[in-house]
């Protein structure tokens, strides 16, 4: 029997925060699924997702992106950008980015890890900043994932940002 099982949830309350961390992720699931609703406190474009943020990250990640306007590829990056992030300097108030991230086979200790990330945001004003985007990320590391960190590319996560991590049970 399998199920979506809630592992942990983080809600930004009171004041903005520079990062959100899920640690001590158990290895008892087959796939991790992360659902997010996020906004930055200032000027930014994307947010990052780091795996096992405990040492050197040089050349750890490579990723590709298809958005509604362009495609891109980055190799040998210290961190991946995985999702658009609502920019509070350009977008209307209360607008948050949505995100869905799958990390299959995350507890394997022999295979490179990948992340399938889909996200987007509307823009009721000019529409110039409305986006839908898919980022697919490959890590060159093989160790089991026990920690995940999210950080805005710039500024902080705004109050109201939420991330929830689920495990797909084996």
């Amino acid at each position, binding site marked *: *029997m*399998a*199920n*979506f099982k809630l592992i942990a949830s983080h809600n930004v309350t009171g004041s903005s925060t520079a990062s959100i961390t899920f640690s001590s992720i158990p290895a008892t699931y*087959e*796939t991790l699924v992360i659902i997010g609703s996020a906004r930055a406190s200032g000027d930014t474009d994307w947010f990052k997702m780091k795996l096992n943020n405990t040492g050197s990250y040089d050349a750890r*990640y*490579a*990723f*590709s*992106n*298809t*958005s*509604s*306007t*362009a*495609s*891109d*590829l980055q*190799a040998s990056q210290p961190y991946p950008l995985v999702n658009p992030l609502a920019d509070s300097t350009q977008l209307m108030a209360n607008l948050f980015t949505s995100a869905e991230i*799958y*990390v*299959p*086979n995350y507890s*394997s200790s*022999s*295979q*490179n*890890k*990948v*992340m*399938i990330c*889909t996200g987007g945001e509307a823009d009721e004003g000019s529409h110039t900043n409305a986006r839908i985007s*898919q*980022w*697919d*990320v*490959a890590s060159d590391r093989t160790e089991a994932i026990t920690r995940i960190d999210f950080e805005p590319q710039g500024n902080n996560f705004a109050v109201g940002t939420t991330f929830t991590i689920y495990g*797909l*049970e*084996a």
Partner: protein
Amino acid sequence: MPKTYEKIATETLTSGSTSITFSSISGSYTDLVIVGHQTAATNCEIGIRFNGDSAGNYEQNFVSGVAGNAVIKGSNTDSGNQIYLIWTQGTLPASWTGTIINIFNYANTTTYKTMLSRLGGKNETNNNSGTWKSTAAITSVTVLGSSNFSTGSTWTLYGIKAA
């Protein structure tokens, strides 16, 4: 708490193979989801077929992003013999990719079947919507490679149960 997301089966390769098949899928769920983690030693395009149907009964639309190129988008309305999850060769070798496939209302016997897929890794991203032009209930799903998937490649089939 009721179980709404059930694992039906997992296929993990212990040797190279050009396909895996989930068969004898019961009709007791509302939708199917496949989560994959795969790689290959040589260029490998990935496709999907239902109920072993290799005739020209498939159509799809896609949006893909490839290194150094603008967004690729288009349609395959030429009655293909499978739904391609990836559109350019060269992605799978030497890199692991992830796959999420959603198959909707798979057990009904009155409508054509539809699916969405996301597949990608470090070299490209692929988003597809596909149609199998059959009203038959889906009882088997085959993931196909144009060359061998490598040992350790794994796919898990889940059924989403009605609440």
